[in-house]
Structures are given as structure tokens and as C-alpha cells.
């Protein structure tokens, strides 16, 4: 044990040193050829920086709420409590999920951290799936912003809500019937099993110490829980946050370097317009409260069906959210879910275009 510890430590040191040296060399090279001023003021960098920080800032309140809820669930809610609260009948379960989604209008940045704990506390997978799909779209704020953005064409707002609900319902049922209920990322569980076995007695000792060392002796039970919740919040924040940040980098880069015209040029013909807008929705990862306005700017370019596809797929399946989901769910499940969402939204909007959205 000791040898490995020493070995790892010296590896740590030399890797770090090597990394720093490389970074330093790159830094020197770069600034020898470009004056610092020109780099800092480069317009593309400005755009990227502004986009990047803006996405993070607007997500910040929601991700904080999400990880806090997750932490509270972790500490205060016993296992299986949630399972008892949700009706057994799959239809009712899905309706419950939809209602929950309507009541809690959180951006998906907040939902994904909470969903893992909800599932562990007993929420069935298919209910959670419906919740994630429905939550970002089926709430009063999003309906209102869609309605306003397309005030001259209210059928678009209704189509968006209706399609989102139906797609979530169908996918929820499919998940209920066909998908194995255990889809949380396995690596988390196995690691922890080992850890627990090795250190059970250590944990006991530590807790003993905890109680003695607390200053507020009388309320140490409470303080323990509070610190626990906060500690969890921080861990979840960093766990989820790294996906949010990575997603923000990607979206920021895309916003900076890819122009709308390029994308528009790619879409030809009826069918592919829908696909193109869906792809755009995926890449842009806009918050569902404001994507309606971006969609509106495409009114003269694409059909209404394509816009609805953009507005339904975007919140359900997007780059930022996908990365965050990969922290929670197994890859296979994410792939299945993505395919289902894409197929049903495409089919749904094609039908809509035939009958309602001329």
C-alpha cells in the first residue's frame, strides 16, 4: 500500500510538472507571435466569452436549486418514500409526472441533478423519463412565452404543448413496457459497494469523532444534517456542473463560429427542414423560456412544423442536457431515449403539418 501511495504521489508531481511546462511553452509561443492586446480584443473571443458566461449565468440559479433539492432528497427522504407516493398504474403514473412537471417549472439544468435522487428514492424509471421530457416544456411560463412570440399564430403554441405532452406520454409508456428499470449509471453503484465494505468500521469511528467535536453540542444532530446537505449540494454542483460547463463551451463555440446562413443553406425541401431545425434545437441548447423567440426569427425561413419541432426537441434533447444526463444514466438508455424522441417528434410534426399547421 505504502509503495503505491509513494509511486502515485511522484507520478502526480511529474505529470503536473510536465503539464505546466507545456502550458508555459505554449503561452510563450503564442504571445511571442501575437501582442497580448490583439488576443484579448479578438472579436471572436469576445463573442465566445460573452456567450459562454451568459449561458452559465442564466443556468446558475436553476442548477443551484436542482442540486439543493437533490441534496435534500438525499439526506431527508427515506428510500421508497417516493415510490409510495406515485400511483402504480402506468397511465396515472405518467399523468402524475406530467403534473409534477407543470408544477415545478425548472430548467432541465435543475432537473437532471434531482432526477437521479428521485429514482433512487423510488421513482420508477418511466415516470422519471416523462418528467424530464415534459418538465422543461409543459409549464405556464413556456406556454406564455411561446404564445407571445407567435401571437399572430396561436396554433403554434398549442401544437408545441400538445406534441410535447403526447410524445412524453408515448415514450413514457414505451419505457414502461420495454426498458429495463435499472438504468442509472452502474459505475457509481459498484464503486460505492466496494468502498462501503472496506471502510464500514472507519465510518463508525469518524461519526463518533464528529459528535464530539461539534461546538454546538446540544444541536449537533441538526448541524450534522445541515452540513451534510450543504456538502452534498457542493458535490452534486461540481458533478453536474462540469457537464453544464462543457456544454456551455460547445454551445458558445457553435454560436461564435457557425452562422445562421450556413445552417439555413443546408436545409432543402420539406422533410429535411424539420430535421434541420431539430438539429439546431439540439445544438443551441436554449432555455425553453426563450427558444420561442429564436424560433420566431425563423418564421420566414422555415415551415411552422419545423419551428414546432425545434421548440419541442430543443428542451427535451440538447447538447448541454445530454451531457448532464450522461452523468446520471447509462449510455444505452440515453441513446434509446434520444432515438425515441427524434423519431416521435419528426413523425408528430409531419402529421401536424398535414392537418393543423398549414
Amino acid at each position, binding site marked *: 500500500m505504502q509503495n503505491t*501511495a509513494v509511486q*502515485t*504521489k511522484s507520478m502526480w508531481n511529474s*505529470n503536473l510538472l510536465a*503539464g505546466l511546462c507545456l502550458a508555459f511553452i505554449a503561452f510563450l509561443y503564442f504571445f511571442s507571435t501575437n501582442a497580448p492586446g490583439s488576443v*484579448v480584443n479578438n472579436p471572436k*473571443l*469576445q*463573442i465566445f*466569452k*460573452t*456567450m*459562454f*458566461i*451568459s449561458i*452559465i*449565468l*442564466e443556468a*446558475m*440559479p436553476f442548477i*443551484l436549486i436542482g442540486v439543493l433539492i437533490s441534496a435534500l432528497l*438525499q439526506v431527508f427522504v427515506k*428510500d421508497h418514500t417516493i415510490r409510495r407516493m406515485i400511483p402504480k398504474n402506468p397511465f396515472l403514473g405518467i399523468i402524475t409526472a406530467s403534473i409534477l412537471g407543470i408544477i415545478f417549472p425548472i430548467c432541465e439544468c435543475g432537473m437532471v441533478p434531482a432526477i437521479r435522487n428521485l429514482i*433512487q428514492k423510488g421513482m420508477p424509471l418511466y415516470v422519471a423519463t416523462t418528467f424530464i421530457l415534459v418538465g422543461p416544456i409543459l409549464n405556464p411560463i413556456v406556454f406564455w412565452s411561446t404564445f*407571445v412570440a407567435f*401571437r399572430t*399564430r*396561436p396554433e403554434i403554441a398549442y401544437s408545441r404543448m400538445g406534441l410535447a405532452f403526447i410524445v412524453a406520454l408515448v415514450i413514457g409508456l414505451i419505457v414502461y413496457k420495454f426498458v429495463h428499470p435499472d438504468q*442509472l449509471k452502474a459505475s*457509481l*453503484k459498484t*464503486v*460505492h459497494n466496494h*468502498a*462501503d465494505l472496506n*471502510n*464500514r468500521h*472507519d*465510518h463508525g469511528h*469518524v461519526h463518533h469523532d464528529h459528535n464530539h467535536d461539534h461546538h454546538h453540542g446540544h444541536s449537533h444532530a441538526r448541524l450534522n444534517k445541515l*452540513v*451534510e446537505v*450543504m*456538502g452534498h*449540494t*457542493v*458535490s*452534486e454542483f*461540481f458533478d453536474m456542473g*462540469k457537464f453544464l*460547463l462543457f456544454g456551455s*463551451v460547445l*454551445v458558445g463555440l457553435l*454560436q461564435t463560429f457557425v*452562422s*445562421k446562413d450556413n445552417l439555413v443553406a443546408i436545409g432543402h425541401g420539406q422533410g429535411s427542414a424539420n430535421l434541420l431545425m431539430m438539429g439546431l434545437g439540439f445544438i443551441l441548447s436554449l432555455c425553453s423560456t*426563450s427558444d420561442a*423567440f429564436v424560433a420566431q*426569427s425563423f418564421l*420566414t425561413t422555415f415551415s411552422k412544423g419545423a419551428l414546432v419541432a425545434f421548440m419541442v426537441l430543443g428542451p427535451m434533447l440538447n447538447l448541454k442536457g445530454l451531457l448532464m444526463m450522461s452523468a446520471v444514466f447509462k449510455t444505452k438508455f440515453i441513446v434509446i431515449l434520444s432515438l425515441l424522441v427524434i423519431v416521435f417528434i419528426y413523425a408528430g410534426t409531419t402529421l401536424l403539418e398535414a392537418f393543423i399547421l398549414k
Partner: protein
Amino acid sequence: MFKVNAAIIHNYLRAVILLGFALLIVYLVASGEILLYVTPKLIIYLEAAAAGLFIVAAFQFYISFLSMKRTVIVCDCSHDHNHGHDHGHGHSHEPPRSIGRNIVIYGLFLLPLVFGTVLPNTALAGSLAQQKGMNLGGTAVNASSAPADLVELDSNEDPALKEKFKTTVYNRDYAKLGMLLYKQNVIEMKDEWYIEKLQAMNTFVDNFQGKSIKITGFVYREDGLPNNQFIIGRMAMTHCIADISPYGIITEAANAGQYANDSWVTITGTIDQTVYHEQKVMKIIIDRVEPAKAPSVPYIYPDWDFASKL
């Protein structure tokens, strides 16, 4: 020994990062530069987030401090036989994964903090309009749908005026605004209702022919515009920068070519119309151009409720 050290570093680093974000938000809100990133409506949420971050950071410092004395187990995992736990805390029984990965991850978190403090906060103007494509707010020339139910507004306006602004039910709000604008001698495009006024005027382009207009914005040229034309634009923000969209009007003058892109000007002119990208849009024939100072927060915001305030 090594394990405890790594845990402490992680804990303190996290506390510092959380504090950093809180401070960044406070700085941006205090300096007003937050408006360069998000709309005014979101500020209150961000202030709440900053408060939350301060609280959480404080607790994390406390935990870090504790972790120096002995190993701190943050989660109750041994008692709670629930194994589906996140392993990313300062657990002492697990050394951090590869150091390279940790550098990348923490680097990601530090990136916005570094960017936010080191790089100057700028407003985005013309350079972004290139990416997004300018909104001229026109209506399709070949609109096939015959206007079904044209309604007149009931208000106590001059009947002749109401007749001019007959429109579909959905455009009623814009009709109301349009009538107000029509009555003005010189239509001044201020920040308030910029988008709405643009929409109103473009919906009733014919009514506004020959009217005087005064407008401030940045100069922008799109591919396909002849030399004697440029677009005068403003950037509109709905929610945050990611959804920012440029709105503008085509302007025309013989000497239009002399105005540099991204320069700010105030134009006084007469409204005309033209067809651009198969849309009928308004156009300004320039009478006078004056240089203008770019406002520090140059964004305009939509106002959903504008109809009730007319």
C-alpha cells in the same frame, strides 16, 4: 497522508471556486455589466443565486477546515444502505482520479471566472449580426392567405385612421401602436418598444410612406445590399445573450458607403419601402446622419405587455 492531502485540496479548491462565482455575480450586478449577459428580468434570480453561492461556499470552507483535522465523510452512506451514491466528494477511501482529468475539470470551472475578470466585458453588435442574420420584420410579399377577418379597432380614433389600420385579429395590438405612431410628426425610435414599433410599421408599410423617422443604431451591411444602402440596427435580447437577435431597417443614401460597419449613428429620414429577400419592408431615405455614442448597454428588450400600456 497522500489521501488526506488530496481531499483537502479538493475541498478548498471547490470552496474557492464557489466563492469566485458568487463574487463574479456580485461584481457584474454592482457594475451593471450583468446586462451585457442577461436581461434585466433575470437579475433578481442571479442575486438569489449569488446569495445561495455565498452560503454554500461558507459551508464548504467549513467542511474544508474540518477535513484538515481529520477525514470528513460528508454523506451518510454507511447508515443509509443506499448505494447509488455520487463518488465525487472528498471521500478518503478513494484517491482522486487521474490528475490530468482533475486539472481539466477544475480548469473548466475556473475558465468563466478567469474570462469574467481578465477579459473586458463588451457589448456585442455588428459582429454578431453576421452570425444571426438581421431581422427586418417584413411580411412576405407573396402571402397567399387572404386576410380573412379584417377588424377595425374600437377606440375613439378618427374613423378614417381606423380604416387605414384594419387588420386581422392577431395584429390588433400592432394596429393600435401603428395608429399612435402615425399621428406623430416625427417617429422617434427610442429603446422602448423598438421591436414592437418596427413590427407595427412593417405590418402597415403602406400607411407610413413619407413619414419622418429618427433612429439610432449601429451600421451593418449584409451581403447583397447595394453600395448606397446599409442597415441601421440594434441587438435585442429576450432572455440571455444566446438568444440575441439583431433588428434593423434598411437605409439608403448616395453617400452611404462612407459609414463604417459597427459605427453608431443617428439617422433622420423619410420612410419608403422596398423588397428584400422576398419580403416587403420599410426603408429609410436618409436626410441627415449624425454620429452617436454607443450606449454602454446597447441591447433592447421586447415588451410583451406593450398593448396594455398604449
